């Protein structure tokens, strides 16, 4: 039984976001070991993945669909620059539309349908009440620019990376739930440029190796990796643009409220070659789970404690955990007494 989308919950102000028991069970817990360190943890994203898991389909549509789409709309209304596509990325945007509509209509036929009559396509999104007929490849036939049109119908942020000179460039995207990075700032940057602020990994040669791997990804052989950080409250939009709204939340963590305030934020990142444009689609699907929900799984609770305990200082600083890391560690210890 798949998770049906729930009525809209919020990722701001009153934070009504919750995870059902099923959503907790399928949460992509990101730590395979007690100690966390960077690695090129990229693996084939073989589809379909295990039934019901977040890896089952290329685009994971879950109980938070309506909530995340409402949140995205709100972010774009406040700041339209959170979505952009440079002129030369138009075809890549259509590649993304093809990939999203084709797979979503196959994977969730009750929610999405796609009918093709040559270049004339009819797309119906029953969850959002959208039905449009358009000419594939002709951006004038869509009610919105292609990146925004499709981006507002998939959960997770999407970046489309142009590939040239053996490098990748951030030339299009819709980024409304980033873990403290900005599309407007990174636009047009190369792979090593937008990873500039990451500590330790450059020296380890990780980005060089990752880039060689990513530029060689063939069509229809997507790969994935998990990334993580911590977020205070169930806030999707932790962008530099809105820092004044959430930066001070880090001061609000107390020993009494750790369990409900601190969320593990996991990104399922998928890289998929776009056939017509040779661009690389980089989808970043974000999952949030409160510490209270996370510790319902004793194995996760124990491991979370050990990972936090051994996390290098540079990463505590880079991920913005400094203020509340000691409080979190103290609280997690109760689930891992022998350590």
């Amino acid at each position, binding site marked *: 039984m798949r998770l049906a989308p729930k009525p809209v919950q919020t990722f701001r102000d009153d934070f009504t976001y919750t995870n059902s028991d099923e959503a907790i069970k399928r949460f992509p817990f990101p730590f395979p070991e007690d100690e966390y360190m960077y690695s090129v943890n990229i693996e084939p994203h073989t589809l379909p993945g295990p039934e019901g898991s977040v890896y089952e389909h290329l685009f994971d549509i879950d109980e938070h669909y309506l909530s995340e789409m409402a949140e995205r709309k709100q972010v774009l209304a406040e700041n339209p620059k959170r979505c952009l596509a440079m002129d*030369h990325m138009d*075809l890549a945007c259509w590649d993304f539309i093809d990939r999203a509509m084709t797979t979503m209509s196959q994977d969730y036929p009750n929610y999405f349908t796609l009918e093709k009559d040559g270049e004339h396509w009819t797309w119906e999104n029953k969850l959002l009440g959208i039905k449009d007929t358009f000419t594939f490849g002709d951006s004038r036939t869509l009610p919105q620019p292609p990146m925004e049109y499709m981006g507002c119908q998939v959960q997770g942020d999407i970046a489309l990376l142009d590939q*040239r*000179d053996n490098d990748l460039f951030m030339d299009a995207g819709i980024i409304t739930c980033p873990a403290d990075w900005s599309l407007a700032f990174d636009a047009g940057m190369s792979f090593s440029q937008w990873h500039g602020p990451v500590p330790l990994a450059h020296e380890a040669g990780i980005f060089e190796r990752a880039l060689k791997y990513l530029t060689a990804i*063939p*069509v*229809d052989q997507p790969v994935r990796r998990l990334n993580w950080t911590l977020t205070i409250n169930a806030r999707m939009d932790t962008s530099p643009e809105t820092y004044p709204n959430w930066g001070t939340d880090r001061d609000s963590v107390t020993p009494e409220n750790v369990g409900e305030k601190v969320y593990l934020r996991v990104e399922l990142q998928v890289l998929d070659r776009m*056939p*017509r444009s*040779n661009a690389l689609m980089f989808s970043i699907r974000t999952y949030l789970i409160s510490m209270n929900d996370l510790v319902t799984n004793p194995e996760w609770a124990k491991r979370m404690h050990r990972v936090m305990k051994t996390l290098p200082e540079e990463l505590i600083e880079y991920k913005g955990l400094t203020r509340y890391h000691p409080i979190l560690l103290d609280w997690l210890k109760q689930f891992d007494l022998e350590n």
Partner: protein
Amino acid sequence: MSAAMKVHVSAIRKVAPTIKEFTLTPVDGEFFPFSPGSHIVVEMQADSKTIRNAYSLLSDPMDNRQYRIAVRLQPESRGGSDFMHQEVHEGDELTITPPNNLFSPDWRAKKHVFFAGGVGITPFMSYIPEMLRRGADFELHYMYRSTQTGAYVEALRNLIGERLHTYDSITSSRAEIADIMAHCPQGTHLYICGPESLIDTVRYRGQQTGWPASHIHYEAFAAPKPGKPFVAELKKSGKTIYVPEDQSLLEALEANEVEIPNLCRGGVCGQCMSPVLDGDIEHRDEFLSEKEKSGNRCIMPCVSRAKSSRLHLDI
């Protein structure tokens, strides 16, 4: 490594005295659309060995009903072009890899200028339909020898008219490359596909006249050149492999069931890079930096060979 696809050879036609065009259609399912400049690797089961050659796709990238490639019968064929010309017939089945692209146009260019030499016309055949759809500014300089090559001249003339400039060496018509480059507006990108001498001429002229390297793109013919035979000793698998003069190290490894990831088989993509423990390397690839080459610690087995009689590899 890319998953193999089975294809039908649905048509073969001669498009120039030494060039045959092959139309490939899917055995089951559908082909992917591809991006302009993509190539596929065709796997040929010859009597004594498996041959794998990369060929540019020359059909319209938006047409996923078929892929087309053109193969020139090489005077010093290593088996691949001979096989395609003599052994492959309409109705046969072949195995190919899905398309991959190492020669994509830079769509930010203000203008695109193509230099094609002989069968090097093929990647531009896939560029042009997309250039036309986007209304891009481009011109094509096509050099050939009409007694051997010069495929698609009429079709191209019909398609792009005055943007086609042809040079037939039989009539002593030659491209004034320096002159063409001098007349390119700022923001032009150059694309070269053809023999090494053509690539070298354009790149050298570009260096002399201050072209940014990022505005000059080229794709050499992929066939690895022969060299002296040598022996490869493999530490991890414990195998000792003889590499004859007309076989690449990658081919010799594959023939001995040592699988190495690879895509372009022409020293460009970097996938087959393998660590070297001992022995002198003759680097012939475009991938490694000068520093990596002089370090003598890694080799691209698809094109590079040993200078010494033995090479000790950490694979």
